């Protein structure tokens, strides 16, 4: 029982430690503003990583998310910036399209018994290629709706700002937690990752679940792409290169087993916050190389993989 939550506690403790360290060392670090910046700066990554958590818990992987973010952003840029669509109309087209894209990947994985790795790798190249073909240039989005989105939010004490992106993220998070723990679909996701064959025997509709999982992941990636356009007011084919790997790292640091079957959406949020705090710490310091972010995340990943291995061994011996 307690081993299931252990990685979560470890991540939480490390996160508080690092944040505390920053707060002691730098003026303005231990502020509401920095905390909320962590959420709004990383909202797109968190939304993506929530989708990735589902996929990884189910025993799969989705490498296409970074490219889907870029494609979604470029489509926003083209439809809104070039063709003068209303943003809501553009979103209403982009989100179902992305969901379909994910569903097709899920179908391939299920029907042809293909490795998720290779199918989503193909999806990654396809989406990035398409995005770049649509526009090599970054397209500016200038629409009153975007100004309204940027201005919408709640002012909190300490010069903090609870904006649209963070609110959207919180909504996604709540829905994801509810789905994962209180719905049949959530139970299917855990069952698939635990043991594919016994899941089938137990009557899990594997086809539906697999397609649903990848469709959800692509949907969330496209939503993240939209959130990213709120962040930059533009769509650009070269955004979010390598974001799929950041998302996977966050999921693992957040305590989800890479082999599937166990993990928490909330842990993933902690994982992203961890990466964000490291980055903020390095920027506040101002003299450390930004590549330290990658080095520390590499070490953390390594540490968590070993931790998972040890915990798993413990579980097997107990059984």
């Amino acid at each position, binding site marked *: 029982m307690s081993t299931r939550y252990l990685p979560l506690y470890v991540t939480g403790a490390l996160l508080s430690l690092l944040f505390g360290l920053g707060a002691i060392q730098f003026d303005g670090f231990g502020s509401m503003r920095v905390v909320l910046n962590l959420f709004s*700066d990383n909202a797109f990554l968190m939304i993506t990583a929530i989708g990735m958590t589902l996929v990884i818990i189910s025993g799969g992987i989705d490498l296409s998310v970074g490219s889907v973010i870029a494609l979604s952003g470029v489509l926003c840029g083209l439809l809104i910036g070039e063709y003068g669509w209303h943003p809501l109309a553009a979103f209403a087209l982009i989100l179902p399209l992305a969901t379909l894209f994910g569903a097709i990947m899920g179908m391939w994985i299920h029907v042809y018994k293909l490795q998720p790795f290779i199918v989503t790798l193909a999806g990654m190249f396809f989406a990035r290629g398409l995005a770049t073909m649509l526009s090599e240039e970054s397209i500016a989005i200038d629409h009153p709706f975007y100004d309204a989105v940027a201005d919408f939010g709640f002012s909190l004490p300490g010069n903090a700002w609870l904006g649209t992106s963070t609110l959207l993220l919180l909504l996604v998070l709540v829905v994801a937690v509810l789905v994962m723990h209180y719905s049949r679909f959530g139970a299917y996701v855990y069952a698939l990752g635990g043991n594919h064959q016994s899941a089938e025997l137990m009557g899990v509709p594997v086809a539906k679940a697999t397609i649903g999982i990848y469709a959800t992941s692509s949907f969330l990636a496209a939503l993240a792409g939209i959130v990213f356009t709120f*962040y930059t007011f533009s769509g650009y084919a070269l*955004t979010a290169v390598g974001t799929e790997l950041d998302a996977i790292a966050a999921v693992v640091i957040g305590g989800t087993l890479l082999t599937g079957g166990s993990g928490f959406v909330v842990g993933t949020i902690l994982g992203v916050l961890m990466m964000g705090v490291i980055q903020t710490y390095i920027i506040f310091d101002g003299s450390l190389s930004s590549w330290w972010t990658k080095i520390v995340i590499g070490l953390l990943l390594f540490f968590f993989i070993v931790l998972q291995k040890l915990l798993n061994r413990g579980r097997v011996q107990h059984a």
Partner: protein
Amino acid sequence: MKLSTILATGITLSCLSVNALALTIGFAQVGSESGWRTSFSESVKAEAKKRGIDLKFSDAQQKQENQIKAVRSFIAQGVDAIIIAPVVETGWKPVLREAKRARIPVVIVDRNIQVGDDSLFVTRIASDFSEEGRKAAQWLMDTTQGNCKIVELQGTVGATAAIDRAQGFNDVIGKYPNANIVRSQTGEFTRTKGKEVMESILKAENGGKGVCALWAHNDEMALGGIQAIKEAGLKPGSDILVVSVDGVPDYFKAMADGDANATVELSPHLGGPAFDVIEKYLGGDKNIPKLISTTGDLFTQDTAAAEYQKRRLQ
């Protein structure tokens, strides 16, 4: 009594001077993708150290999201001013509005940004590309007394640097009736492409006879062009004059060897002017032009050997 007064005054003064000196400035750099970019970063760091500025340096690894995060952290940290060397032109409006709300002045260096509202940044400090073209052309016209058949290696199609350099150059030679560009093609700013294109130009121009000068939009293409001229059996630097823009060490070597004639330096030393502007702005002088040009000097063979030694060691 007297002593304590002196002491007190001394302490107050030193506090004041510390306060005046210890500016904290955040610098959001693109990355370290080229030699020029690295010398740009190093130059800003050195200049900050010289002035006693506490510089917060952030390398965005070529990602705009990292740059925006860095700028937002600078704002949260309450720095006195922010310098941004933007990776792309679009997407700066929200974060610049946040900086403005926090009353932190922002200076843009190098590449341009697209924001509708000019008041979101203090100024942009960059080299004026058309000025570079004008300087190169003026040197060539002075050297050839305005009699010259020129071939041109253009930069990447659509790049601001290529468009503006060509325009500046053409503005000047337009005043000389006996000077004209006989061939013009893109070499995409690279050495290999520059060589390839120059080879075909020389073939088309009767082996290069009658061509008086090569004008390249950057040193890399010029170096490729020099190679092609040599292979065609001509002597670059005397049979065909070579003039370009950038001032990379290899080109200084080519000038020292007599293979090239002149280049306009694209200065990586943007830190000094940026800090000057910030100090002026924070000092209360808000009357600052929206574009500050830092066009470099033109270098010729006369100083090439010495400059090459200096630059190679950097």
